[in-house]
């Protein structure tokens, strides 16, 4: 890839400017576009609040009649559902394209980015819409913006989540400028992008709750459509909190495998416990089924239809059944305890049931040796997150939360548990002075792709235990036309430290092919074939017929683009900034839940105040 070959894309991007496509033109053009968009949004909001336009009000009222909710709930939620599914599709597609093709060769070469950008921006707009629409104070919990303008808590939080995710874009750029293009989902700024979108599902439920409370007791009973949307919301939370697992879903995880059960248990405990508390019997199972349907649909479009790498997803059905069964006991009458026991049930029995699915379809199954550490991480996290889910369920069903100190304390404990488990999960060892000796045997080419099988001897031979997480060959970024650009082969063990391919691996073209070893705390790799990458000044690593290479840290191979000469302190500062942002988001959601719970329906002076001015 050269600079010249990017130019056509560049000039097209600038829309109208030709030839040179100087960066300045693009900056001006896009800045003008952004000012126009921003000004248009502000203008519409201002006109609406000054009651100079009626179409937005009428549209909201129409949606409100359809959905049996106030306009400031119906319209934003309709927009939210559309946009979050768009963003989900863009996200999964984007990840799969990166896995199949590597980093973006040009701005327009990755159409998935548009879906993400559009999706996150409309997410922000949906939140703003909920804030701007109501002329009257939207329920007792509403937040005062001016004396005549109150915004629903759910709307503010939804806009906040959208803003948090959108800020991830410029930060992502700064990050990549400093640290290079790290091709991993778990880059800190990537976590902002997906976390903001993932947690926004919760804000939609808050908003719906405010709307439900605002229409009061006399409202007609909710029809099946509304019920479906409520179930879908919890399916959305299942998916929204599962965004951190996506690398595992594609089989190219760059972090230790014990993260996977913990992440599944945490997402399942939170979403399913809260679903069961709010929507009653069967809700956890229905939420899991809807999540499977939605993820399945997206996976089907991205994989078989669009030809990108295949991804699987956790089913959460076992976890849902566990939550349902626990809810049959009297525990359900004590929500917090139910959340704790439910979370622990999800992290034990639920994970065990899930493991059958993982073992059946995932590229990397769970070995028996994973369980002690996996349970040690998953049980405390899922137990505490389950209590948080229970508190959300209580808020959504107007049950009084325990005291402020206990509520905030539980959230803080959950965050600490997650942080502790994460810190443990991120610890891994790279063996010193260990090598792998390869004897490569050419296999019939597939098209212009050279293939080979390997006979591998690891030195020292006792480096790998009897039950490692994986000893496999991974090939990725080989291009979508070549077996979707991903190849995984679990090696056959023939003797102590002696392994053999079970299928020919790609050793030419754009592929990055490597031997991966993960055994408990040890996580390491040996490059077999890495294509020459002049874009980052990396020479080709050829697959020789006979070669002995040392085990190295996986990051140096999987993320060759990453700059390694950056001081550690800068890395730490970057991580801390993102951490603070994430904690602010969690604090915001906690604040919102507390505020919704604090304000039981009461009369308020401002409710009868019709005037509205910005």
């Amino acid at each position, binding site marked *: 890839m050269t600079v010249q070959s990017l130019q056509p894309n560049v000039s097209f*991007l600038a829309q109208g400017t030709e030839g040179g496509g100087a960066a300045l033109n693009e900056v001006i053009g896009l800045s003008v576009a952004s000012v126009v968009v921003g000004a248009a949004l502000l203008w519409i909001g201002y006109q609406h609040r000054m009651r100079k336009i009626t179409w937005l009000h009428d549209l909201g009222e129409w949606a409100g009649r359809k959905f049996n909710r106030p306009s400031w709930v119906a319209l934003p939620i309709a927009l939210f559902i559309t946009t979050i599914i768009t963003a989900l599709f863009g996200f999964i597609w984007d990840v799969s394209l990166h896995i199949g093709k590597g980093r*973006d060769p040009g701005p327009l070469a990755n159409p998935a980015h548009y879906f993400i950008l559009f999706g996150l921006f409309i997410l922000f707009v949906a939140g703003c819409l909920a804030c701007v629409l109501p002329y009257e104070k939207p329920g007792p919990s509403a937040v005062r913006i001016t004396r005549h303008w109150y915004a629903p808590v759910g709307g503010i939080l939804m806009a906040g989540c959208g803003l948090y995710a959108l800020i991830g874009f410029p930060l992502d750029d700064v990050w990549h*400028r400093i640290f290079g293009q790290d091709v991993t989902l778990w880059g800190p700024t990537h976590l902002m992008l997906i976390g903001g979108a993932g947690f926004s599902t919760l804000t939609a439920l808050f908003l719906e709750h405010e709307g439900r409370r605002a229409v009061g007791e006399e409202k007609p009973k909710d029809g099946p459509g509304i019920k479906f949307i409520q179930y879908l919301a919890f399916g959305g939370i299942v998916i929204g909190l599962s965004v951190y697992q996506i690398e595992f879903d594609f089989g190219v995880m760059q972090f230790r495998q014990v993260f996977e059960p913990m992440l599944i248990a945490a997402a399942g405990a939170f979403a399913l416990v809260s679903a069961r508390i709010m929507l009653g019997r069967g809700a956890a199972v229905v939420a899991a089924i809807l999540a499977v349907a939605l993820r399945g649909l997206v996976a089907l479009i991205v994989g078989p239809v669009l030809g990108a790498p295949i991804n699987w997803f956790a089913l959460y059905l076992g976890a849902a059944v566990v939550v349902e069964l626990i809810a049959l006991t009297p525990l359900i009458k004590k929500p917090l305890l139910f959340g704790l026991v439910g979370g622990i049930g999800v992290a034990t029995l639920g994970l065990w049931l899930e493991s059958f699915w993982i073992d059946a379809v995932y590229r990397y199954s769970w070995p028996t040796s994973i369980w002690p550490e996996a349970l040690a991480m998953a049980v405390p996290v899922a137990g505490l997150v389950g209590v948080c889910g229970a508190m959300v369920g209580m808020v959504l069903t107007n049950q009084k939360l325990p005291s402020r100190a206990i509520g905030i304390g539980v959230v803080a404990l959950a965050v600490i548990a997650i942080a502790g488990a994460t810190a443990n999960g991120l610890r891994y060892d790279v063996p010193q002075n260990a090598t792998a000796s390869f004897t490569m045997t050419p296999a019939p080419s597939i098209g212009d792709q050279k293939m080979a099988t390997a006979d591998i001897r690891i030195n020292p031979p006792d480096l790998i235990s009897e039950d490692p997480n994986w000893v496999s060959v991974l090939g990725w970024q080989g291009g979508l036309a070549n077996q979707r650009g991903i190849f995984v082969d679990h090696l056959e063990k023939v003797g102590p430290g002696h392994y053999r391919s079970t299928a020919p691996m790609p050793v030419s073209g754009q592929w990055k092919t490597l031997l991966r070893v993960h055994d408990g705390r040890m996580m390491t790799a040996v490059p077999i074939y890495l294509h020459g990458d002049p874009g980052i000044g990396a020479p080709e690593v050829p697959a020789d017929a006979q070669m002995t290479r040392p085990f190295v840290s996986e990051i140096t191979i999987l993320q060759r683009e990453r700059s390694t000469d950056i001081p550690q302190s800068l890395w730490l500062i970057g991580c801390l900034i993102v951490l603070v942002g994430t904690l602010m988001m969690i604090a915001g959601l906690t604040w919102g839940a507390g505020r919704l719970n604090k304000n039981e329906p009461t009369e308020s002076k401002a409710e009868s105040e019709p005037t509205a001015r910005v």
Partner: protein
Amino acid sequence: MSQAPDVQILADHSALLAIPAFAPAILVVAVVIWVARRDRRLGDEEDEDATPSGPSAGPDQDGTP
């Protein structure tokens, strides 16, 4: 040779592409915060005006900015 600028350009574009999305969002939030602060300041000033002559004007009471 020209490799380093290549990476730069890639990074540039991801941000450029995102400008129409994140810049308006920040603009909108900035304006709303400004509006809210102005309203509170005006409200405080009215409170000060109102205090000597009668019952204090609560934040929810009518008052045209």
